């Protein structure tokens, strides 16, 4: 389903398992704009309406693994003029990252389609 390169044992658990929530949220945060670490944290928090809280440890651990897997790349561009600092590193999603994100979102859509078709899944959705 995904290009083989992205199947990093440290990014995802196995060849058939989905992306980790942290990786998915970071890809979503970078989908439309290049951001620095703190910018990604803020975007993830706002995208998830405060439900996902990511600390620097999780964030940079994930960023490191995503860089290795080629899902993102470092960028020289400075977007945040308010907080700009020479040392601040910006990250951008790569083509592989876009493909992976699209594939992952499609996987979620497929799961939802199956769940909507199944009467039992509908019961679960209503908490019965």
């Amino acid at each position, binding site marked *: 389903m995904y290009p*083989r*390169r992205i*199947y*990093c*044992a*440290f*990014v995802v658990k196995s060849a058939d398992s989905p992306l980790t929530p942290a990786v998915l949220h970071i890809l979503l945060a970078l989908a439309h704009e290049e951001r*620095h*670490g*703190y910018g990604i*944290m803020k975007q993830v928090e706002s995208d998830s309406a405060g439900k996902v809280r990511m*600390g*620097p*440890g*999780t*964030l*940079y*651990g994930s*960023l*490191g693994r995503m860089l*290795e*897997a*080629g899902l993102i790349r470092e960028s020289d561009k400075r977007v945040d003029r308010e*907080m700009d*600092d020479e*040392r*601040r*590193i910006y990250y951008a999603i790569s083509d592989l990252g876009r493909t992976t994100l699209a594939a992952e979102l499609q996987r979620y859509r497929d799961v939802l389609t199956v769940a909507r078709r199944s009467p039992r899944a509908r019961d679960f959705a209503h908490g019965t």
Partner: protein
Amino acid sequence: MAPESSVHRSRIWYARLLRLYPTQFRERFGEAMEQTFADTCRQHGKGDAERVGFLIWVFAETFTAIIREHVTRLRRNGMRDDIRVLKTVRYAAIAAAVLLVTGIVILMVLARGKTGDDGDIAGVVAPALFLTCVSGVVAVVATVRQKRAQRRIVRP
């Protein structure tokens, strides 16, 4: 916003915690992490209780990440050793197969035209062929496992 002095103090302690990261990781992300920590600290500073709660959470989160990073590194090193062994096995198996095939060919050339016991090389060729097949299988298995391990370790 938290007072700048408090942010500075927390940042110093956070920098000390970051020293526990593997050197490579710290050199690459240490400064950025410190900066992100300071940015986050400034945003979580409405009250003392909130600030302390936030600091405990961030320090615990980063400490967990440090352990995870060390475990990952150890696993990767283990995998690298496996890859090295598999590579050696693969080359040894290929070399053995090539030597056996060469031996069989030489034997067949030498035995050509000979009759009787001198010409009967089946007793030597059959086990040699079997060993060649085994070497081939070992080489293929080692190659497949090596590739799999390399994929898992992924381009670090």
